[in-house]
C-alpha cells in the first residue's frame, strides 16, 4: 500500500489501522449493534453458542455477544479517558519543567523519579486498597501513575528543543511561557508525543483490564472485558474457549495499536534498516 507521499505502509500497520477503526465503530454504535441490553438476563447460565445467543451466555445468563459489544464502549472509553488525563497533565507538567527549569524542574523530577521507581501495578494495588474500588478512583489512580511516564518523555524531548536558537529568539522577543510551550516547542515534539499516546493507551488499557481481571478494577454489572474473563474463567476447565473471547478482544486491539505505533516510530526516526 502507498500513501500520497509515496512512502509504503507495511501490511502490519494497515492491519492495525483497520482493526482500530473497526473497534471505534463498534464502541460508538454499541447501542445499535448489540442484540440485547448490557445487563439483561436473557437465558440460563453458560448456555452454549447458537440460536439467539451467537456466543452463548455468561455466568449469570447474559448474552455474551452483547456484553462483548457493550464492553468495547466501557473498556475503551474508560481507558481513553484515563490516558487523556494522564497525557494532558503529564505533557503539560513536563513542558513546564523543561521551560522553567531550576527548582520547579528539580522538585517535579525527583517526585516522578520516586513514583517511577517501583512497578505501577504495585502502587495501583496499594492506592486501590486505601481508596476502595470505584471507576473514578480507578481512573485517577492509573492516570496519576501513567502521568509520570508521559512527564519523563515530554520533559526529555522538550529539553532538546528548549536550548535551540529559535526558542531563545522567542524568549528575547518577550514571549510568555504559554506561547513558548504552545507555539515554539509543541509543534516540534508532536511526533514522539503522538506515538507515546498510542503506547500509553496500551499500557493503561492493559493495566485497567488486569485490575478488572483481579476483581479490583471496573465493578459488575458494568460489561468490561477484563472482568468478563474473570466471571467466566470457570468455563476454561471444561475446555471451552468462551472466557478467552474478551481477552482476545483486548489482545487484538493492543496488538493493532502497537503495529501502528511501531510503524510511526520507525517513520519519524528516519530509520531505514
Amino acid at each position: 500500500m502507498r500513501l500520497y507521499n509515496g512512502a509504503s505502509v507495511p501490511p502490519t500497520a494497515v492491519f492495525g489501522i483497520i482493526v482500530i477503526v473497526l473497534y471505534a465503530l463498534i464502541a460508538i454504535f454499541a447501542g445499535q449493534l448489540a442484540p440485547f441490553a448490557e445487563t439483561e438476563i436473557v437465558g440460563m447460565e453458560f448456555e452454549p453458542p447458537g440460536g439467539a445467543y451467537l456466543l452463548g451466555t455468561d455466568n449469570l445468563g447474559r448474552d455474551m455477544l452483547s456484553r462483548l459489544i457493550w464492553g468495547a464502549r466501557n473498556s475503551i472509553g474508560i481507558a481513553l479517558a484515563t490516558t487523556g488525563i494522564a497525557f494532558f497533565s503529564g505533557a503539560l507538567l513536563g513542558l513546564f519543567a523543561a521551560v522553567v527549569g531550576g527548582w520547579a524542574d528539580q522538585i517535579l523530577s525527583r517526585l516522578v523519579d520516586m513514583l517511577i521507581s517501583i512497578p505501577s501495578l504495585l502502587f495501583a494495588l496499594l492506592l486501590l486498597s486505601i481508596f476502595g474500588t470505584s471507576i473514578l478512583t480507578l481512573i485517577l489512580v492509573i492516570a496519576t501513575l501513567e502521568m509520570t511516564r508521559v512527564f519523563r518523555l515530554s520533559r526529555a524531548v522538550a529539553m532538546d528543543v528548549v536550548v535551540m536558537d529559535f526558542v531563545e529568539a522567542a524568549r528575547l522577543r518577550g514571549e510568555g511561557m504559554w506561547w513558548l510551550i504552545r507555539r515554539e516547542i509543541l509543534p516540534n515534539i508532536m511526533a514522539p508525543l503522538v506515538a507515546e499516546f498510542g503506547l500509553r493507551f496500551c499500557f493503561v488499557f492493559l493495566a485497567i483490564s488486569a485490575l478488572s481481571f483481579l476483581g479490583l478494577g471496573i465493578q459488575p454489572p458494568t460489561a468490561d472485558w477484563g472482568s468478563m474473563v474473570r466471571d467466566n474463567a470457570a468455563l476454561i476447565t471444561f475446555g471451552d474457549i468462551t472466557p478467552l473471547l474478551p481477552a482476545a478482544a483486548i489482545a487484538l486491539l493492543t496488538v493493532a495499536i502497537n503495529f501502528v505505533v511501531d510503524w510511526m516510530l520507525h517513520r519519524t526516526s528516519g530509520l531505514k534498516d
Partner: protein
Amino acid sequence: MHPLARMILHRLALGLLTLFAISLFIFMAIELLPGDLAEEVLGQSATPETVAAFRRDLGLDQPAYVRYLDWLGGIVRGDFGQSLANNRPISDLLAARLGNTLFLAVYAAVISVPLAVGLGLLAALYRGSWFDRGVNIFTLSSISFPEYFVAYILMLFLSIRWGIFPSISDFGSSAGLGEMLYRTFLPALTLVLVVTAHMMRMTRAAIINLLAQPYIEMAWLKGASPLRVILRHALPNALAPIINVVALNLAYLITGVVIVEVVFVYPGLGQLMVDSVAKRDIPVVQASCLIFASIYILLNLGADVLAIATNPRLMYRK
C-alpha cells in the same frame, strides 16, 4: 579504596535512600484518606466505641510520625505488625509465600534470559530477513497480550485439552524439586513468554545500534565471519545495555507474577497481596508492597553495578 567498591557503596546508599522514600510514601498514602483507617475499615455503621477501640489497638491515636517510626522500626527487626483480617503476624504470612514467589520468578528467569539474548542476537544478525520479521511480529504480539490471556491459552491446551501439565500449581510442602518444577511449569512458561519478548526486542535494538559503528564495519571489511563480528566485536560492548534490559525485565517479572499467581492459584506473595486488597487489609498490602519494592530496587542496583563493571568507562563519567 578500589573505585568499583566505592561505586557499589555509593549505589547501595542511593538504593537505601530510594527505599526510605518509598516506605515513607507507602505509609503516608493512608494519610490521604479523608477520615482515617478505622472509619474506613469499620464502615459507617460502627459505633463510636468500636472505632475508638480500633484506633487504640492500631495506635491510630498517635501522631503520624510516631506511627511511621514504630512501623519502620518494627520492619527493621522483622516485625511487620498484624493482619487486620485474621490478626496473624504479617511476617509469618509473608515468609511462607515469599519463597514460593521467588522460586517461580527464578524458574522463569533461568529459561527466559538465555533464550531472549540468543534470539535477540540471531534477529540482529539476520536483520530484515523472514526470521527477523516473524520474530518481530511474534514478540510485538506477545508484549501486547494481557498476561492472563497467555496464561489461559496455555492452560486450555497444555493442561485441559492435552492433559500434560496440571492447571493448578499448588504443590504441598513435601514436594521434591522435580515435582515442584513440573507443577509450576505452566505459570513459569507464561512468565517466560511475556518477558522474553521484551528482552529480545531490546537485545536486538542494542546490537543493531552497535552494528552501525565504524569498528564493526572495520571488522566486516577485514573479512571476519558474521558470528565472529557479533560475538567478539559487538556483544562485549552491548553487555551493559543487555544487562540493564535483563534486570528491567526480571523486575517486570515481579508485576507479572501477581496475575499469573492468581490464574494458576499459586500460593505466592502476589496472590496474598490481591486478596488483601480485596479485603482492604491495608497493613498486609503495605508490607507486600514494600517487599516487592525492595526486590525491585535490589535488582536495578545489581544491574547498575554489573553494567558499570562490564564497561569501566561508565565509572569515570562526568
